[in-house]
């Protein structure tokens, strides 16, 4: 049996310093993966660096925000008929060495989407700042309550998915801080989501776009979005509604 075609989706906004290492890391550990970098309206050399390291580069004409960028990657994966997709952040937080563990439950047919969770195991040494921790546990609690499933890390963008997951996210993916709402979306569409514990590294370059004031704004906004997403009727299954 031939290996499934896998695409690594890497959203990047002004990550010229880190993106080369991310692409190299994926390609050296997993030579059979294709890599697509979504350059989210960067003003630095992100696109050029990524292309030079052998990634396909999709350059958005202006900054769409993380949700719009990631969705572009899934649209690309759907268009190019990839069977599996993994998503890693362009800042080097996600370790490509953990990808096989994310893909394993999908390859065993046990899940449609797998999230790498910093908190699933409990022994991770990742300690986000306080404001971040409050936000993370608020959403983990709320999402677990809404979906009646235990979700420990709703803000992780370290994910793997099969064709069903790709089709869903290509069709509908939330905007800012999208991972939280996406979890509810996955649940509403009755796809199977699993978490596996992972370690995340510190950012290598630049700084997180999330500040305390923004955290509060996003908490309110995303909470509203979550409640609305739960109340919204689900459209026809994404797979059939496309193409």
């Amino acid at each position, binding site marked *: 049996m031939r290996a499934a*075609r896998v695409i690594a989706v890497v959203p990047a906004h002004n990550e010229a310093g880190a993106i080369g290492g991310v692409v190299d890391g994926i390609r050296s550990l997993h030579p059979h993966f*294709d890599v697509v970098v*979504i350059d989210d309206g960067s003003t630095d050399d992100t696109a050029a660096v990524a*292309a*030079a*390291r*052998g*990634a*396909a*580069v*999709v*350059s*958005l*004409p*202006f900054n*769409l925000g993380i949700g*719009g960028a990631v*969705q*572009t990657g899934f*649209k*690309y994966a759907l*268009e*190019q*008929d990839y069977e599996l997709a993994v998503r890693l952040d362009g800042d080097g937080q996600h370790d490509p060495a953990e990808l096989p563990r994310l893909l394993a439950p999908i390859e065993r047919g046990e899940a449609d989407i797998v999230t790498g969770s910093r908190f699933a195991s409990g022994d991770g040494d990742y300690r986000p700042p306080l404001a971040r921790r409050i936000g993370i546990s608020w959403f983990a609690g709320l999402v677990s309550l809404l979906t009646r499933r235990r979700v420990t890390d709703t803000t992780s963008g370290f994910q793997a998915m099969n064709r069903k997951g790709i089709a869903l996210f290509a069709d509908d993916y939330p905007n800012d801080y999208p991972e939280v709402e996406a979890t509810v979306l996955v649940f509403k569409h009755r796809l199977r989501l699993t978490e596996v514990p992972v370690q995340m590294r510190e950012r290598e370059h630049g700084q997180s776009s999330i500040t305390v004031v923004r955290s509060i704004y996003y908490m309110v906004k995303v909470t509203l979005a979550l409640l609305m997403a739960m109340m919204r009727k689900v459209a026809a299954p994404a797979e059939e509604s496309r193409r």
Partner: protein
Amino acid sequence: MTPIRVSIAASIASLLLLLVVLELIRGRRLKEKYALLWLVTGIVLLVLSAWRDGLNTIAGWLGVATYPPAILFAVATLFVIVVLLYYSTVLSRLADQNTILAQRVALLEQRLSARSGGGPGEVDGGPPPAVSETR
């Protein structure tokens, strides 16, 4: 009773609003679709301003008979809120369409450069490229 001067001033203001809206439509600076709510606003305000008995009667129903012009403010405010809300929905839709457009342009550009350059962007097994034999 409504003071006559309030009626005159309010009528003139409503007329001006109507004229400005019509002029904007004429000059193609405002689409009819978005102008309708403004026209309705102007007409309703004009009617309430000029038809003094009507304004007094409505004020009586709502318990502000001592100062009927309050109804003009209330109606104007209500319409402004409705117009703003409507514009928010328009804006949201435009933002969505803008996102979809940006994504489609970016994907097409990528496909184009992958095809012509045959560089690192090239991906095998995609949707059958019309000019695949050029590789």
